[in-house]
């Protein structure tokens, strides 16, 4: 996916993107931790939930809003174009509802009995997890980008294998 796929000349026959105009959208925190959305000149939604259209391949753009009944409101293509407060709420909510720690270092990796025990440092803190040794649990999003799924369904990302330190790379090499 690249920037060019937003509207190409060839896409004229397609229905319009359910886009929300970032200039008209305002997000607020209501007293509790819910988020309220107002689209100027249209209407307010008391409780919206926020989700990513491409959580893995383009996590910072194409953010979708749904209302309290889980009906689609529309897409924010570039959250960066929102006002500061709304942008911040989007970031907080996305951080809250997507947990995909990024592995920065592999401290130890043991293989025993057809399973691998990992101890890693992530951007969200130190973590330990267990994976079954099948290759199905390691998704290779590209030649150097991996997403690991542990046996409890938790997921961890390695954005670029080459940027890990060499000790971590050597450990990782054992399971790839």
């Amino acid at each position, binding site marked *: 996916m690249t920037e060019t796929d937003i509207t190409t000349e060839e896409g004229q026959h397609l229905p319009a993107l359910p886009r929300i105009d970032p200039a008209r959208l305002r997000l607020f925190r*209501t*007293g*509790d*931790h*819910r988020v309220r959305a107002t689209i100027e000149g249209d209407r307010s939604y008391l409780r919206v939930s926020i989700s990513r259209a491409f*959580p893995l391949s383009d996590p910072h753009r194409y953010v979708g809003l749904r209302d309290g009944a889980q009906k689609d409101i529309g897409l924010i293509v570039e959250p960066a174009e929102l006002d500061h407060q709304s942008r911040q709420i989007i970031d907080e909510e996305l*951080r*809250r*509802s*997507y*947990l*995909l*720690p990024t592995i920065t270092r592999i401290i130890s990796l043991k293989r*025993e*009995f*057809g*399973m691998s*025990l990992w101890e890693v440092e*992530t951007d*969200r*803190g*130190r*973590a330990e*997890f*267990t994976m*079954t040794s099948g*290759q199905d649990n390691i998704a290779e999003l590209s030649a150097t980008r991996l997403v690991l799924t*542990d*046996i*409890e*369904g*938790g*997921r961890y990302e390695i954005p670029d294998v080459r940027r890990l330190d060499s000790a971590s790379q050597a450990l990782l090499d*054992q399971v*790839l």
Partner: protein
Amino acid sequence: MMPPAETLPDSIRHRLNELGIEDAKIDWSIAGDLTADGDLGERWLVLADGRLLVISPADSRPAVDLSLSRITRVTAESLVGCGALEATVDGRTVEVIRYTNAVAADFTRAARRLEALVKQESPPKEAPDETRRRCPRCRRRLEQGTNVCPACLSKAQVLRRLWPYTARHWRKAVFIGALMLLGEAAGLTQPYLYKIAVDRALAPEGEVPLPGTRIGLLGWIVLAWLGLQLLSTAISVVRGRLSAWLGARISFEIRANVHTHLQRLSLAYFDKRQVGAVMARVTQDTGALHDFLVEGVQYFIVSVLQLVGIGVVIFWLNWQLALLVLVPAPIMILMSRLIWRRLWRIFRRFWHSWSRLNSVLNSVLSGVRVVKAFGQEDREIRRFDDRNVALFETAVRAERLWATYFPMLTTVTMMGSFLVWYVGGRSVIAGTMSLGSLMAYLAYLWRFYGPLQMLSRITDWLSRSLTATERIFEILDARPEIADARDAVELPAMRGEVAFENLTFGYDEHKAVLHDINVRVTPGEMIGLAGHSGAGKSTLINLLCRFYEPNQGRVTIDGIDLRKIRLEDLRRQTGVVLQDPFLFSGSIAENIAYARPESSREEIIRAAVAANAHEFIMKQPDGYDTEVGERGQRLSTGERQRIAIARAILHNPRMLILDEATASVDTETDKQIQDALAHLVRNRTTFAIAHRLSTLRNANRLIILEQGKQAETGTHEELMAKADGVYRKLVDLQTEMSRIAAVGG
């Protein structure tokens, strides 16, 4: 009553004490693993003294401190990779604590308990967590779908359970054992003949006998040698053949047991597991067991025998030399372990590359139409090339590693020989050792290192095989939840009177899918079940088939509780036609006769005629012998449906269950299917999950389900008379839809 508290760490307890909460007032606690910022870190949710608190070891003050009396609702929200426990306090929703998926199940349960507590209801009955996620002994996380912890597995116990399978063939086992000993003895004698040949015939010391005598002796020795060689060949052929049979036989018996047992297990067992995981149990695990029994055990015993036998002999021949021989042994064991590990890893990667190449090839060949239609050949060529290059690279790495390490390992093994040559040779020159002894010694040496390398790998092999074996036993230990009651009654001729009485059921006991269903059906009546998807229609059918048992209330047939009716009688008199009929690979005739394999050809054709299937079957070049392909893929949906109807007609059940297809078929086919069904339902008690208006109208009565509750029951006319009825809305909607379809189509 609250469940027992998890043991709180002292630091948290101290914090609570500082807040004025004594230990005795702590009702219950649970550990979360995410901080308020979403970082990984320990936090505790504590219920104490009528308050709900969240405390982390780092903070002095609780992050959340809520009085239970202010809370009106507690829910567990599931997010991506994590979850949040939320509470509604004074009408506002707040987030109490967050956690990762690792403990999400515990928090979901905690939320339900808290919800019951604040609503002052009795706490929900929790089914015991059947699939444990951690080993209760060593806290290791367990693989999904199994409770076997490979670390805590008692190897002796598994071997003991394998014993009965072996004991059945004890004569053969004993015979194989005897052959092993004999073969070993023959093998041990051979190098000793070197000694005799050299010392007596070739280079005798002291008084040298005449050459004629020496040649005669040599002749005898060589003959004895030949004899021994023939004997040990014969022994190893017989032993190999016998033990191959025994190992294969035992794993055959276990595989058959596992499959037989799987067939007896209830649907609920399969619901909780993935087909792939169960298949792996039957194929891979029994395969691992087979390898172990056929090769592993033999290698192991032979290696141990050789090691002990040769060890004794070389010490007996010359104990000083024997000590020297042992010098390179530790290096060798260490090295072969390392090498095997690396080789294993690299070869696994090699196989992985292979399977990736295979999957590209598989998907592109089966999707070749799509590739051609969109003109994407070049892209597919690139994709294949990428994988092909990866395979080439791993293949080179694997072969290079192999080519490098093996000669090295051989060199280490040679070290022992060099030492023996030099030290032993000096003894020969000094006259303290005979030349023959040295020759024999060197020959023994070569046979000594092989088993040593083998045994260094046996532990890995053993634990892999035993874990596989234990997982197999785990299946054999699973008890079918649905079985004939001890006082089951025979019901040879069912009348077909069915009643649901206060029926309540949920696949998870705490999440009811059906609430309090009450219906009485007279024999021969046709009941239409309607409602939105997820309303509980299929669940009701599952209970009627006794695939599951109700949590409360009961289902009766002819006044007898379903749980008391012999399963065999129930199945024999119930026929099912499913929405997407499942055909087994085989011929059309075999599929029609699935429930009654003894049916004659004539009966099969008559059933097909009644199901409006005869005509299209006859158009097939192979007629009734047409192979339907895997899952019947070679037939169209409409054809599969009519075969399934023919199958039910031939089965001639007293009670019929139809799951009507939503899939659109052309009008002509639809009419044919409807005619076939009309033929089928005559005089049988029928339950039909109905979507079509025509079926709904034909039903004697309709049960409308809404969110698991019986919303409306009555005839088509009665229900249509209700101005605001659920059924009326459904029908209006459908009429509208078909009008649009009629106009548009």
